[in-house]
């Protein structure tokens, strides 16, 4: 209390003014809530309410007769039957589809394509947003939509049969459109048994307990050491950045084949071929003989950042834009500080030929092959051709994701990949991939794992080499060298594909 004037102000002034300010603050706070409600109820409304895990979608999926799923030729892949209470349940054409179509079971929810397109299959959301707007005013609730997929049932079954009792995956897609023809994953499982209410509990429990993890969709979610097939990614980075040309050779390469390549005090060894006769190889021959030393040196010359950038434009480092959720592929663990995340030069040198911390999904490697096949342009992969229901038919058009390398670089790599399948030495590794009457381009891979366990067997490629209509990736877990398991499977698949095209 210093004076009457001040005490007057102190007593009577502030309460009113402070009240107004507090009132305004609360008004702003409530305007914030209104903004939040607007965000979730308008901007995010359709993406959240149509999501596979939305309660309304789940609730509807338990009551509604789901839409049918067919392959691209109209063969039924999934349809409905009714149990003794008259409630519908799902039946699937073949266990071979389990890794891609997944299942829809009352008790266990949904997986695979059944999950990704749950809203459309149950009719909660249609592919036509205008139709959704007037849905509120129509009786009868949901209009399930039928899906026509990009798959080919016979090829899918063939892939699973070829993989046999091995664990692995086959992805076959059209490089010009991104349409996936085959997406096989083994071991497969009987999705019909999971969907059928009388067998559901037992079947699902057995699958969950199975140590070979049949429920795990390897084609999209399995991440594997790539081995030599990753050299195609390194080649894209090196050629498109100008770090090397097809005539580049390394004088130290022949010697390093016997003594190992000294990088930063460590020796990068490569003992698996002697076929180069002591002369330094150029790019084509390096791909053909799958020379690790050549690609280690190329990786170092290209630089980690460029390698990562090219890989990222191929889809590495994130979920792929695809119907099903995918694991993300990686070039490096990314914890290091050398050139964008590598631990050091040694890791970069090893990653350049697909060892080190590099991990890839089969779908990702199929896209690498498809990019080369499609003159350097990566198409967005997709599984559905069209969805049709009461609202009409919505067709999903092919979509360019991005250009990764120029057509000329893609051509240079294609030529090398042709040599890798058909050249005098390449033939030794990948003979199994050859198909009579059509030129196949490809690259095999042998992903070295811990000593004592046999390596993953890989093959990626496409055909016909000059005018590619199909690209393929095959992995057989612990299948040995690329030439032993993956290349023959790829060859057989391409043969079957030729037969299918011929009708």
């Amino acid at each position, binding site marked *: *209390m*210093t004076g009457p004037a*001040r*005490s007057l102000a*102190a*007593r009577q*002034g*502030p*309460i*009113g*003014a*402070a*009240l*107004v*300010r*507090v*009132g305004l603050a*609360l*008004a702003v*706070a*409530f305007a*914030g*809530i*209104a903004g*939040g*409600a*607007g*965000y*979730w*109820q*308008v901007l*995010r*409304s*359709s*993406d*959240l*309410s149509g*999501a596979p*895990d*939305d*309660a*309304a979608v*789940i*609730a*509807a999926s*338990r009551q509604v007769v789901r839409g049918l799923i067919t392959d691209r030729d109209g063969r039924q892949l999934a349809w409905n039957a009714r149990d003794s209470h008259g409630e519908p349940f799902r039946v699937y054409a073949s266990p071979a589809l389990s890794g891609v179509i997944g299942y829809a079971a009352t008790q266990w929810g949904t997986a695979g394509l059944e999950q990704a397109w749950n809203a459309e299959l149950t009719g909660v959301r249609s592919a036509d947003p205008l139709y959704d707007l007037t849905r*509120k005013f129509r*009786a009868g*609730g949901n209009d399930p939509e039928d899906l026509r997929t990009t798959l080919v049932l016979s090829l899918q079954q063939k892939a699973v049969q070829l993989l046999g009792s091995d664990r692995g995956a086959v992805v076959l897609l059209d490089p010009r459109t991104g349409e996936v023809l085959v997406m096989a994953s083994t071991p497969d499982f009987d999705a019909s048994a999971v969907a059928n209410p009388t067998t559901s509990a037992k079947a699902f429990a057995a699958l969950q307990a199975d140590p070979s993890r049949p429920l795990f969709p390897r084609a999209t979610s399995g991440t594997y050491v790539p081995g030599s097939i990753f050299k195609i990614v390194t080649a894209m980075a090196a050629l498109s950045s100008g770090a090397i040309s097809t005539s580049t050779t390394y004088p130290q390469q022949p010697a390093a084949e016997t003594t190992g390549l000294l990088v930063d005090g460590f020796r990068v060894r490569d003992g698996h071929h002697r076929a180069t006769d002591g002369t330094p190889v150029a790019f084509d021959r390096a791909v053909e003989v799958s020379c690790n030393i050549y690609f280690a040196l190329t990786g170092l010359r290209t630089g980690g950042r460029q390698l990562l950038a090219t890989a990222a434009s191929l889809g590495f480092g994130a979920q792929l834009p695809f119907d099903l959720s995918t694991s993300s592929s990686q070039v490096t663990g990314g914890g290091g500080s050398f050139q964008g995340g590598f631990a050091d030069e040694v890791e970069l040198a090893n990653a350049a030929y697909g060892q080190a911390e590099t991990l890839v999904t089969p779908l990702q490697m199929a896209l690498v092959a498809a990019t080369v096949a499609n003159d350097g342009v990566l198409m967005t992969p997709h599984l559905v051709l069209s969805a049709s229901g009461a609202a009409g038919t919505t067709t999903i058009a092919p979509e360019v994701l991005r250009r990764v390398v120029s057509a000329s670089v893609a051509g240079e790599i294609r030529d090398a990949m042709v040599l890798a399948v058909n050249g005098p030495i390449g033939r030794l590794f990948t003979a199994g991939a050859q198909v009579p009457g059509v030129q196949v381009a490809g690259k095999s891979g042998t992903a070295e794992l811990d000593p004592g366990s046999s390596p993953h067997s890989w093959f990626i490629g496409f055909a016909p080499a000059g005018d590619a209509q199909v690209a393929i990736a095959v992995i057989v877990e612990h299948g040995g060298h690329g030439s032993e398991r993956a290349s023959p499977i790829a060859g057989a698949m391409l043969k079957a594909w030729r037969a299918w095209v011929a009708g």
Partner: protein
Amino acid sequence: MTGLTSTAGTGLAARGARTSQAIRPRLRGRELGLLVLVAAALVAGSVSLGATERLQAALLNGDRQLPLVLAPADAGLLAVYVAALAVAHAALVLSGRRTDQVLLPTVGLLGGLGLLLMERLPQSLAGSLGGLAQTQLVWLLLGLAVLTLLAVTVRNDAWLRRYKYTWAAVGVGLLLLTFVLGRDVNGARLSIALGPFTGQPSELLKVILVVFFAGYLSENRPLLVEESTRVGPLRLPPLPYLAPMVAMLTMALGIVIVERDLGAALLFYAVFLLLLYVATARPSYVVLGLLAFVAGAAVLYQFPALFPTIRVRIDVWLNPFADQAGAGYQVVQALHAFARGGIIGTGLGAGLPTIGGRPPIPALHTDFPLAALGEELGLVGILAILGLYVVLIERGLRIAASAHDEFRALLAAGLSLVIGVQAFIIAAGNLKLIPLTGITLPFISYGGSSLLANSVIVGLLIALSDQGPEVRPPGPPRRGVRPLARRPA
């Protein structure tokens, strides 16, 4: 003229009562008009719910012909509630006081919306008196009775301002009681059981705290405004004078936090800071308070061993989708409910899909009623509900601004801030604007303690809004009047 400044209170107030004339009823036209609108809206809502329920039953049966039945979902429930509003209005008319006419209809509409929601949810969710809706109706009637009683009878506030420390003691006692006798619900020890009834003392404590704060602040306001604590070159607020309030707040917060009732803790703290600012107009208090809050939250986040819930809540807030099936489940489900509602909603009764007969959010009726209403009434409905709360706040703060003295002003401000801040905390939590802390949405959420405590608040606000008799002849005082000899000027 019932409000008298602190110490002069007793003498004059007592005489004021003696001189008051016979009570004359006074019509409340605006209140009546607004209540008619409330009744109309509730009838429309109930008819909408009834028609939807019958339609869905027919769809489930597989009937070809869809029925159109335009009748209320539960006419009895609705009639009882509207009648109770009418009785409350009549009591206010008979009391003849010139008090606020907007608060009762606004609260009536909010309560009615809550009742419609409870009718619509699975009746087995909660409630001992024949289901969710009936139990809620009983609490609503009790709440209206308490509200009316306080609005009619509270004329003198001496009992509030004089015994503030007693009130504080009662409040802390209540919480300690919860701690000793409490039952654990969802890992939080929130309620005490008395026979078949359970109550949440923290709801009552919020009213008591406001009374205590208003009493203490009005008494010590000049000191808090004028004095400063000097720490080196810094001029800080006079912390010693704040000690009793801080002690009270710490005690309440401590107990509430130990009981894991984070929503109440956040509410107490926010109202404390806001009221301190209203009383002193010194932003430094708010700044200091916020700094302390952020520091405290950061420490608790860094050392989750101290208090694991905080870290979980903040992580869920930052990204609920990271653990959709676990900790983030309720928040994600609430966001999905809002999203399903869209702009105009699904209509009452047509949303909230149940999976296996249960709604996806377990605490829908207590912590997430806004998400439920957001789904069924859409953005349009949410904005209307927010508008109703803004009306309550505006009205309360206006009553505070025109109060005769500081205690009443701070009391009215504090009470309306409690409702406003509480509605904000839970609404913003539902919408992922702030971390979710479980607290009820005033007048809409299911729950007796919450309804009763908020009714006490609005009852007091209506009483505080009394403008006194309109025309009052000056009339000579009764005793001790003597004409005084005038000295020539």
